[in-house]
């Protein structure tokens, strides 16, 4: 890989918020497109961050920091992006289900998805199925991410699934679930489409869905 791109990747990986701007600038000067920088520099860096997080080496504050590092350069990159070339990535709705107010996990998923170019519509916590479906209709988002940490609130996933059917839009959206009390088995039981174990997994899943969309 090209040296400058590798340095951007390294800066994300080492959470170098002070160095990243200049490194991105250098890539642009060398003629790299914003898309190249996002994919081969920032994206690769976030992968490494994710691996470290999965091994426990990085922790929550590091993930938040990684989000900040990426936010530092996103405006410059967006500005330079040719609207036609800009990857037409999907809008993703995120919400913590009704009755549950845990938000840290969801926010981190949001940071990672937006850092990777998705337009995240974060509805917050304790969100009713009704509000989620209304947002789907208003934004035209194709992916809904639901976060649940309380085992007593998992029923909220099924409510969203059922309401989507009732509104006749179930087949237009992919429902991804995550959070400490969720699992692959729960995903099947509730009739959702995918389960993500952590923020990096969330990104892989959403990437998969948007490629196939």
């Amino acid at each position: 890989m090209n040296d400058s791109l590798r340095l951007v990747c390294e800066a994300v990986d080492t959470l170098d918020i002070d160095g990243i701007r200049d490194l991105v600038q250098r890539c642009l000067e060398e003629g790299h497109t914003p898309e190249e920088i996002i994919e081969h520099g920032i994206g690769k860096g976030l992968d490494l961050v994710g691996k470290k997080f999965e091994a426990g080496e990085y922790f929550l504050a590091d993930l938040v920091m990684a989000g900040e590092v990426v936010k530092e350069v996103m405006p410059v990159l967006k500005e330079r992006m040719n609207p036609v070339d800009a990857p037409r990535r999907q809008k993703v709705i995120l919400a913590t289900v009704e009755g549950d107010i845990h938000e840290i996990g969801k926010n981190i998923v949001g940071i990672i998805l937006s850092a990777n170019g998705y337009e995240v519509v974060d509805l917050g916590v304790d969100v009713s199925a009704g509000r989620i479906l209304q947002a789907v209709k208003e934004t035209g988002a194709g992916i809904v991410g639901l976060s649940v940490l309380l085992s007593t609130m998992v029923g909220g996933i099924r409510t969203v699934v059922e309401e989507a059917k009732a509104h006749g839009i179930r087949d237009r959206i992919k429902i991804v679930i995550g959070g400490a009390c969720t699992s692959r088995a729960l995903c099947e039981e509730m009739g959702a489409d995918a389960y993500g174990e952590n923020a990096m997994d969330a990104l892989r899943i959403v990437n998969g869905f948007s490629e196939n969309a």
Partner: protein
Amino acid sequence: MREYTVTLVPSGRSRPFPEGTILSDALVDMGVPLRTPCGGRGLCRRCRVRLGDDASTEVLACRSVVDRDVRVMVAGASTWEVSPFPGLTRGRRLGAAVDLGTTTVKVALVDVDRGRFHTVASFLNPQRRFGHDVVSRIAAAADLRARDRMTGLIRSALRVCLEKALLASRIDGTTIETVVLSGNTTMLSLFFGLDVSPLGRYPYAAATRDFPGVAPGEVGLDGIVGGEVKGLPVFSAFLGADLVGALTLFGRTSLEGWTLFADLGTNGELFLAAPSGEVFAASCAMGPALEGMNISCGMSADDGAITRIRSTPAGLAFDMMGTGEPAGITGTALVDLIAVLLDARVIRPDGRLDLDGGRGGLPEGLTAAPEGDMKAVGLWGGLRLTQMDIRNVQLAKAAMHAASRLLMDAAGVAPADVRRVVLAGALGEKMDLEGFMRLGFLPPFGGATFEVAGNTSLEAALTACIDPGFAAQAAQARQRVREVVLSEQEAFQDVFISSLDFPGG
């Protein structure tokens, strides 16, 4: 589903169980007080039993399932023991005090007239298989049959415990006059057979806040208890009788200056009491790390457990229960170990294991022992402390640290205004204060004095056995409480994340 019969040898008692039932669960259901100190993770090997008439095969009960009819030799199995109450004679008025913890249950007998008591047993809550924290149990209780099972399990464990305690104290056949239970709202509600679903749903209302005496027959204690069985009052869904009980105990002594009380447990509870009598209280979800349950090498204080770890000039030394190879470490030893590793800079303040450079490096006797991609420190007897274990301790400590900071904010006091800090909880008893503060479970308080109060939940139940007015005083003390609901605090996320780091060396 198919069912198979489990038969106990030599008694011949038998009972059918659905295929796939974990053998240790089946034995506990049948009233065998089998010990499972590592929580059934196959780590401690204390749950060994022999199968077959000739007792020829030995298995770990926690790792075996009922997939055929089995005969289990329980005679030689390791069951939790009760400790006899010394010097107790027949004819005394007896009470029993119970601290009904989510993870650990403690039971004491009380010689009511002499005001003496003795802790007779401590065992893992047999409801644990329905979930490790209160919320999972509330979720499990949505299935009424599961709820009945949880209620039945704890009642029969208590019955077995009391019977054994009387027998061991050589006063079997005596009846206990009153039983007083303390513990969190969910545990008490499940014991008394109440609906717990409102506790798990917004707005988390406790339908019942008082548990006045019921006849022993209503809770499966007939014959052994003569009078009544009652619970201490609770404040709300997450502020239980343990917190209200402690507040009542402290209400009996005068408070000078602000006092912060912290009860460590799977569900941590704190209160901050003003000299004026006002009380701010909060609960925080710490998880079971300090009870050794989401720690890869964790176990409860039992044979084979390392209970303390110290740094000596000759390297690290540890105290262990029983003999042989260590089988796991308890929450207190875990705190010791992390403190030592922080001082040796093997753990950085942000919680990362630094095994490559680290000034001074690993203390004598420890090794770097990675587990796949994950860094880990090799301890003794094949045990290790992984990076994830450290992360789980950080989550627990951040929950308590953040809760105490938000409680002080709500009350408008600074750490320097706090004069007295009291640590309690089943773990509080043996917890090393220095290690506890070294890990930053609480922020530093410039001028405060520290006390380790031990198990105030059990103490409150004990006091209520002796003093019939205690429950009423508790109901009264409860009126001074103002709950600070952390989930409603906007600052929570930032405070929580910034509480994750260990204090710098």
